[in-house]
Each structure stands twice: as structure tokens, then as C-alpha cells.
């Protein structure tokens, strides 16, 4: 089996490198990334198929209470006459948490639209200088689209606090203590400040929704927030709240892929127990 895999790998690489077994020119593919590339292409195909099925209305996804309740949080703020906070995390566009930042910004866009429409005062304290102008643009766009631009004070409502973790944390905690917000939505990558935020807003009496794919912070949100988005749910959030059948359909691709990972995992564990390491070898190609 080992030999078959080795031959298969050589064959694929020689085709990609454009030689037929003679001297090897510079390889096109990075070593050890053949299977990840194939998996990526399959993910692309699966997403395309899921989008097509979504367009035809063939895909139904389960409700996510944390996202369904965003409107309730904004409504609560309006009824109580208190502000609402949306914190998109401390990630940037250039680190490995960029996807979480994008997911958080998608939710920010949705929350800003709801806040403008319903008349809630939205605060978005920012920590990252590269994300800050995008957040300003998103919120401004949302208020403009609802024809409520005069109700938005960008400097006051979208303050850049600090790029340093605990300086930022103390700034947000201070705002929560002074303003007593009715709601707080935290979506994106968070670090140790997550527990400080969740506790401080809980003490201020805010209804909270937390969502992150950072593993160590999920328990903190689960302990204190009213609703939690766990891991992958955060990535589905933007598509979910958009209500667009194409985007909703693409979420199904995640489940297909997860199913494939589950099957490979179980199969690999059983085969490895029997001393056959074919799955592991294949994934390392």
C-alpha cells in the first residue's frame, strides 16, 4: 500500500511538473501540500454544488438561536432606551484569525442595519487599526441605507481605544460600566479579554451573545453569555443572517465536508488500529 501511494504521488507530481520521469525540474507544488490542494478544490466544488442547491431551495439549515436573538437584543436596547455594543474581536485582516474577523464584520453590518432601523444607539469599540476604517465604513453604510446618517456620531460611537490588549479591555470595561448597555454582541476572535468583557457586561445588566472560534474562549462565553455561537457557527453567521438562499446553501458544504472528515477519521482510526496507515500516509502527501 505504501508503494502504491508513493507511485501515485510520483505520478501526480511528475504530471504537474511536466516531466516524464527524467530529471526533475523545479517542483510546481509545495512538498506535502498535494492532498490539501485536492481537498481545497473539492471544497470549492462542494460549495458550488451547495450554492446551486440553495438557489433551487433544496437546502434547509437548522436554526441558530444565537443569531435569531440578535434582533431581540437590539429591540431590548430600544425599549430600555439604553445603548447596544457590538465588539468584532481583536483580530486583523492579515493574521490566521482573518476569517473570524470577516465573520464578525458581517454581523456588525447586520447589527448596524438593525440598530439604525429600530433606533438603538450602537457602540463599536475598536482595537485594530486595519479593521477600524472598515468598521466605520460598514456602520456608516448601514445608517446611510436606512436614511439615518444624522443619528450616527462616528467618533463617539466607533472609538478606536487601543491596539494593546489590556488597555483596550479596560477601555471597553469602562464604557460598559458607565453606559449600562442593554445588549452586547461579541463576534470574532477574542483572547483573555473575553471573560472580562462578558462579566463586565453581565454586571451592567446587558443581554449578551458571544461567538468565537478561538477554542479557549468558547467556555468563557458559554459560562456568562445568554447565547453562544460555538466554533464553525461563527463562520456561518454572515450567510445565515443574510437570508440569501445562495449563501445559506453554501453553509451545507460545511456539513458535507465535516461528514467526509468524520468518515475519514473513523476509517483511519480503525485501519490504524489494524496496523494499516494508508489514510495517514494519504493525508500527508
Amino acid at each position: 500500500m505504501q508503494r502504491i501511494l508513493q507511485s501515485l504521488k510520483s505520478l501526480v507530481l511528475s504530471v504537474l511538473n511536466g516531466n516524464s520521469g527524467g530529471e526533475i525540474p523545479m517542483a510546481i507544488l509545495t512538498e506535502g501540500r498535494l492532498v490539501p490542494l485536492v481537498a481545497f478544490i473539492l471544497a470549492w466544488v462542494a460549495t458550488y454544488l451547495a450554492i446551486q442547491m440553495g438557489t433551487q431551495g433544496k437546502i434547509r439549515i437548522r436554526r441558530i438561536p444565537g443569531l435569531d436573538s440578535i434582533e431581540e437584543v437590539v429591540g431590548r436596547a430600544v425599549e430600555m432606551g439604553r445603548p447596544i455594543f457590538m465588539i468584532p474581536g481583536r483580530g486583523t485582516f492579515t493574521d490566521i484569525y482573518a476569517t473570524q474577523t470577516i465573520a464578525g464584520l458581517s454581523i456588525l453590518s447586520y447589527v448596524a442595519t438593525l440598530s439604525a432601523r429600530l433606533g438603538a444607539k450602537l457602540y463599536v469599540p475598536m482595537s485594530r487599526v486595519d479593521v477600524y476604517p472598515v468598521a466605520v465604513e460598514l456602520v456608516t453604510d448601514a445608517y446611510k441605507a436606512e436614511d439615518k446618517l444624522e443619528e450616527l456620531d462616528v467618533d463617539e460611537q466607533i472609538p478606536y481605544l487601543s491596539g494593546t490588549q489590556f488597555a483596550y479591555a479596560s477601555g471597553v470595561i469602562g464604557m460598559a460600566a458607565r453606559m449600562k448597555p442593554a445588549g452586547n454582541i461579541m463576534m470574532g476572535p477574542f483572547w483573555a479579554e473575553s471573560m472580562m468583557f462578558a462579566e463586565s457586561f453581565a454586571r451592567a445588566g446587558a443581554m449578551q451573545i458571544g461567538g468565537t472560534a478561538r477554542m479557549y474562549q468558547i467556555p468563557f462565553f458559554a459560562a456568562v453569555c445568554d447565547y453562544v455561537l460555538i466554533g464553525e457557527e461563527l463562520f456561518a453567521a454572515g450567510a445565515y443572517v443574510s437570508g440569501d438562499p445562495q449563501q445559506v446553501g453554501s453553509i451545507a458544504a460545511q456539513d458535507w465536508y465535516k461528514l467526509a472528515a468524520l468518515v475519514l477519521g473513523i476509517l483511519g482510526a480503525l485501519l490504524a488500529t489494524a496496523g494499516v496507515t494508508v489514510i495517514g500516509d494519504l493525508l500527508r502527501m
Partner: protein
Amino acid sequence: MVDFRRDIPLAITFIIGVIAVLDYYTTIPIFINTFTVIKNWGVVLQAFALGLGAVNLLRVHGRRISERRDDWYFSAVLLAMMFIFIIVGLITGQYESGATYNWLYNAIYLPLGSTMYSSLAFYMAYGAYKVLRARTFEAALLFTTAVLVIIGNTPIFPAMFPGFFHIREWIFGPIVGGAYRGIRIGVGIGAVVLGIRTLIGLETGYLGRR
């Protein structure tokens, strides 16, 4: 009809995304070199954005001070510190390794940062107190597990009864490890699919209502 405010950012996202993907999977020099240039642009843009952040701080807090709003003196302290750091950096010409700059950082920021970090222990203890109440079966299970892990983490109990250490290890291994990997796989797949949605221009939430 072409909507420039929407289509140009989407086109830029797609082109740069594809170059990033090719940079990761292939060894073709043109993609690697192009992506290096793009990453350098990112660094330059971040430097400009930092200036934007400083201007925002100045505007927000300057307005608070001039209008004598509540707690305006905090804004005054913030701006004073910002200018002290900028002036010291400019005068000494040593921004990170200078003695004066280091002293300012070590004497002012470091103790404040450490204080904030250490306060985390109280936040966590309070959070644990709220959660660990055995009111339902699941909560009782969580409570029992938490107590066993806490006991297993203390030096004295495993020293007296080594079984506690093994229980803790078992909880962290098969139980937590299994659940952790499950969530991690989901996170990885979710990130990939979100990346694809972003590349093909389906995920436009980060562009606003365009």
C-alpha cells in the same frame, strides 16, 4: 451594470485571494514574489492606519475635553500620555530600545497591564461560581468534572492520592481531547468555506450594504 463601489473591492479580493492560495500551494516564483509584495503593501497600509487611529483618538478625546463632558480628565490623561510617548520617541530617536522610552513603558504601562491581567483570576472565579451550580444533571456533571480537574491540578492532592492526577489526565485526554478536535475540525472547515465564499464574492458582509 457595473457597481464600482461593490465590484472593484470584490475583484481586488478575488485576485489577491487567488495569489495567496497559489503562493501557499505552489512554488512558482512569480506568485511567491507577488504575494511578498502584497504583504509588504499590507504592512505599509497598517502603518497609515495606525496614524488614522491616533487621529481618531485625538478627535474623540479632544472634543470631550473642549466640551467638558463627564470624566473629561481621563481623556486629558490619555492625550497627555500619547503626546509624552510621541515626544520622547522623537527627541531621543529611540522608539523601542531607548532607556527613557523603556522606563516610561516599564514604570507606567507594564504595571497597569499586569494589574488588568491579574484581575482575570477574579473574573474567572466569579464566572465559575455562577456556572458551577448543580441545578440540573448536566450542570452537576460539569460541577463534578470541574472539581476533579481542580483537585488534579493542585500539588497536594495528587501527591497524597495519585489517582486524582490520572483522573485529570483521563478527562483531558479522551474526553476533552475528543471534543476539542471535533470543534477544531468544524472550525477549520468553516474557515475554508467562508474563505471560498469570500473569494467568489458571495460573502459581502464585510463590504457593507453594497
